[in-house]
């Protein structure tokens, strides 16, 4: 099994979610994150003082998938998350040794 982690733009979340659903993925976990990269932050001015935000808001998405699905899932996310503009994000895949579904106690591939 693999863990696919994707850092995407918040506004692409809906599209990515729908694309994954369409692909047949039924579960995922997301959280808020902040990214630092080529895309720069922005600045605000308060009473003459400039204030810089280095980090840019991102969504961090995690999906556990079967070994064989990993590649396709990366492709699906890639496609749905792409806007072509700087800051689109990053995806990585990590090997997973064990998975469990808490409600049922199932283990391994059944638990995905």
């Amino acid at each position, binding site marked *: 099994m693999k863990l696919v982690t994707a850092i995407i733009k*918040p506004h692409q979340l809906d599209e990515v979610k729908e694309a994954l659903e369409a692909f047949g993925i039924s579960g995922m976990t997301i959280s808020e994150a902040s990214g630092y990269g080529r*895309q720069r932050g922005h600045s605000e001015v*308060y009473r003459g003082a400039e204030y810089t*935000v280095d980090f840019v808001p991102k969504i961090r998405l995690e999906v556990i998938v079967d070994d064989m699905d990993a590649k396709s899932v990366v492709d699906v996310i890639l496609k749905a998350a792409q*806007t072509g503009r700087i800051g689109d994000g990053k995806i990585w895949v990590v090997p997973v040794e064990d998975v469990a579904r808490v409600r049922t106690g199932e283990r391994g591939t059944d638990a995905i």
Partner: protein
Amino acid sequence: MDGYYAFMLVSTALVLMMTIPGLALFYGGMTRSKSVLNMMMLSYGAFAITTIVFVLWGWSEGWAGAGNGKLIGNPFELFGLKGVSWHSAADGTGSGYVGVLFQLTFAAITAALISGAIADRVKFSSWMVFVPIWLTICYFPIAHNTWAGGFVFKHLAQQDYAGGTVVHINAGIAGGVLALIIGRRKGFAKDPMRPHNLTLTMLGAGLLWFGWYGFNVGSVVLAGDTAEKSTAQFMSETGFTFMNTTIATAAAMLAWLAMERILHGKATSLGAASGIVAGLVAITPSCGAVGLFGAIVIGVVAGALCAWAVGLKYKFNLDDSLDVVGVHLVGGLVGTLLIGFLSTSVAPGGVDGLFYGGGLKSLGDQTGAALFTLVWTGVGTAVIGLAIKYTMGWRITEEAEVEGIDFHEHGETAYDLAPLGGRLGHSAPSGLPASAALEGAK
């Protein structure tokens, strides 16, 4: 009569407080967190610009030549308040600086009310241009016609104690027309755009209720010919309007909550806040016209009807963002028209409506005045709205709208509640829009 005068001073301050910060909070809490500052700025900005306009030509256009039976007063006659006595008259005729100031706060809140219909999407500069023109073309004439013995009043003698037509129908129709001209927000009726901070909205509604006693009760105009009679009138009339205002508002709040429970299963705090405002709106024209029973009926009808009416915008696909039509136009019509039925000669207004044996005269007067306002301001607002649309333009860019108007128009975000003080984009609750400014949302 210095007591009456002291009350007018306080009332004037209270009506100012209704806009700044009352309405700004009421509206601000209902927007998304990325738009709250802009929403508040539309109220604050409207108040400031109205002040200048009102002192220059507004008072003159609205009140010069009171009783002349014309459509407007001469804007140059009292330009810059020249000739207006700052030795305010104690007879309550509305002359003197305090009379001017009291009316000024009404014009300001009317303009500010409109902003709820076009939340989250208009350029601050366009708004600041719109307000003075709208006041000139739509507000001062209606005020003249209604309260300064202008054309309409001469022919219809409608009752509008504190602004059912002048303030609420006026703002309501203007809001509806502007929303139509300016168009929907990106994502309207698709994306959830739920209130970002209902404690602000509840606070705003509370301050509005408080301030409305200045608005309604302060609208007493003394006609007593002796000091004793004036004092007696002051005491009896304000007791009446204070009571009606209180009871109609409570009834409207309860009615809205009941309606919600029926329609959606739950009574919400947004419903309570909205019911309060709907009741206040409806009792505004009628607080001097009806008795206790009438006030309760008006409150119940306004609360229930507005609770239902706010859902209509989705049917008509009209992005009246914070329900200016559903609350102010509908509520204003309820209060204005029900006077025709519920008005009683026992009340200060002294007119009997349909249910009190007064026949159809009152209903006709009220309907006529409402129609006049709808048409006049509907057309006027359309002209101004279109003129701005095709010259300087109304809308911020779609990207800016998605990213957040607060950052885009004002370079700010409202909240920074995070431990790191907003240094992570995401910990600034409104950080997203800001960042998106550079990345460009899809």
